[in-house]
């Protein structure tokens, strides 16, 4: 096999110039045939990017301009931009605090989902225990339960347990009682919102990871087992390193989902001190309905982090979407 490949390469190297020119024109012809497709793709990329670009441009314009003319007018005067809106939104509207709140909510909620889902997925994929399939089917069935249906029962449960207080714990921005007498569980607590997001994220996360883990070759795991690895050893030394694409994709999915979540925060976090960016932005809409310049700046701040994460991990993201569907 390898010899045949070499032969082919050898021929290519010795091919006369005319032959190579042929292949070049052939290539151009192929590109030309693909031109309509490329144009169509460019068209869609532009259409899809317009809202984001509009948001960015609007957030950099003077407050008066935003309401009097369309955002595209700013492109005609490229130097007429200001960062004042960002300064306003961060300093006077507590958006900096909300940004940190968003991180405090999102990072643990993502970490717990990935951790628990990876353990569970390993068990579902490779450990033999009674009721494995039934439990997995139940897990998958949870995927079809609409989140909205669970909100009221969860809220009632949370209200009941939110009276549990543990001294010395509290919210980082609780000025009256810093780190004292804060709520630990239930509504208006970090642990409460982490648990809610973790629970909502788990069915999909387990499903995704189980399918990926399950597609890893059995021989490798058996070989490690004979080599003396325990289940924990196999999980940490083989499964995790080999599943990085799926785990990275899941991390991005879950991070974006929690970061962009409004509904769950709205229901479970009434305390403005704990409000993440989505809540803050939505309050901007109601109380500063006309101040579009602030709204756009705030919205762009909330987009910035997911964009950075997406571009940093997009290679994994694309691989991970195919996770488990195509083997090898």
């Amino acid at each position, binding site marked *: 096999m390898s010899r045949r490949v070499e032969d082919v390469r050898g021929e290519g190297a010795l091919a006369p110039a005319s032959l190579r020119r042929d292949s070049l024109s052939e290539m151009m012809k192929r590109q030309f045939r693909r031109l309509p497709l490329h144009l169509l793709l460019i068209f869609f990329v532009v259409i899809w990017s317009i809202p984001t670009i509009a948001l960015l441009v609007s957030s950099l314009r003077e407050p008066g301009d935003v309401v009097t003319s369309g955002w595209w007018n700013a492109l005609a005067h490229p130097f007429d931009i200001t960062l004042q809106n960002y300064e306003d939104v961060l300093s006077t509207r507590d958006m900096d605090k909300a940004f940190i709140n968003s991180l405090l909510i999102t990072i643990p909620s993502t970490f717990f989902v990935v951790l628990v889902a990876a353990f569970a997925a390993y068990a579902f994929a490779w450990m033999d225990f009674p009721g494995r399939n039934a439990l997995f089917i139940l897990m998958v069935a949870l995927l079809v339960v609409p989140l909205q249906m669970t909100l009221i029962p969860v809220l009632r449960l949370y209200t009941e347990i939110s009276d549990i207080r543990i001294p010395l714990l509290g919210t980082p921005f609780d000025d009256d009682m810093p780190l004292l007498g804060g709520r630990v569980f239930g509504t208006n607590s970090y642990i409460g919102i982490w648990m809610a997001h973790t629970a909502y994220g788990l069915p999909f996360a387990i499903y995704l990871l189980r399918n990926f883990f399950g597609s890893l070759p059995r*021989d*490798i795991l*058996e*070989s*490690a087992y*004979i*080599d003396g690895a325990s289940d924990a050893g196999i999980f940490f030394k083989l499964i995790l390193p080999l599943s990085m694409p799926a785990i990275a994709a899941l991390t991005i999915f879950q991070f974006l989902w929690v970061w962009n979540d409004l509904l769950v925060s709205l229901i479970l976090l009434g305390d403005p001190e704990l409000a993440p960016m989505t809540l803050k932005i939505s309050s901007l809409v109601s109380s500063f309905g006309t101040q579009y310049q602030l709204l756009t700046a705030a919205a762009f701040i909330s987009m910035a982090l997911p964009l950075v994460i997406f571009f940093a991990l997009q290679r994994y993201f694309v691989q991970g979407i195919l996770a488990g569907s195509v083997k090898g």
Partner: protein
Amino acid sequence: MAGVTFEHVYKRFGEITAVSDFDLEIPDKEFLVLVGPSGCGKSTTLRMLAGLEEITEGTIRIGDRDVTHVPAKDRDIAMVFQSYALYPHMTVYDNMAFGLTLRKVPKDEIRCRVEDAGRILGIEALLDRKPRALSGGQRQRVALGRAIVRDPAVFLFDEPLSNLDAKLRVQTRAEISKLHHRLGTTFIYVTHDQVEAMTMATRIVVMRAGLIMQVGTPGQLYDHPTNMFVAGFIGSPAMNFFTGTVVHEEGRLFLDLEGFRLPVPDDRRRDVEAFTGNAIVAGMRPENIHAEGFSPPGISSSTVQAEVVVTELLGNETIAYLQMGEHEFLARLDPRVQTRPGQNINLAVDIDRVHIFDPESEDALGTTKPQTAPV
């Protein structure tokens, strides 16, 4: 270093019995090959020994130790898989060191053992590479190396050559045999390829549908198959089978094979006599059918005539596809035999090498004489 004992081992998957009453003692240092068609239970047997499958019934011992319920990692075995099963994210060195690291072997000793194994297998230059940068043959060596460094009591091989191309397979076959001599450890090897079994084994177990059909050295299996399955499975091209009856005429016994008759040699008379008038199956290996005039000296033969259908000249021999009445069969003829399709040819059948089976039980009647080299 240890032998392996299977005591009445069964494996059932629900209603299906994959392995049935597997009872075998494998002495230390033996190269035992389990061979049979796919689904015969050979891999399941190996996996039960490895600890990868639960045993439904019976006992397995390695040395004197009952390992029936011992986890795989504590059985002191190493296994080479068909797919190589290398850890793709580790270098060759780490792949080979993995088992030792888990067993907390000192680093210096690991280095020493991995480098030794690398030298034995000729892969010391590849230790820093990742498996994806290796060819199939090299990967197979790494898989062997990973087993060697563990210095186990028993080596298990699950069709390790199936993914290699034909040439590499022959080469690696010889290397595994060499390794067996060098290490002097018990090897248990599963394959569906009877050529691998014949060339490497000190003893072969032929299996079918979860049952042991015969256990013996390659020579015993080839010359003295105890049933039609083994007779047909071992040897390539396969043995020819002819249905017929035993007839008694003028004080002599003949095999009447629908179109031709072969006399029963005197030393086989006792085995066959009871079947007089009954149906039998006669088996003849293609190399025991010679073209008249080219048969080796000293054999007692009987002449029959057949029509040539196709011939394949292989240089050292000619494989002839022949037809005689209803029977189609093969013969390995001397390459000097000049014959064309459509011609009739006189053949000399070595009657001492005819195997006779009971068509109902498929068991051999008595045994044939051990083959002796012509003087």
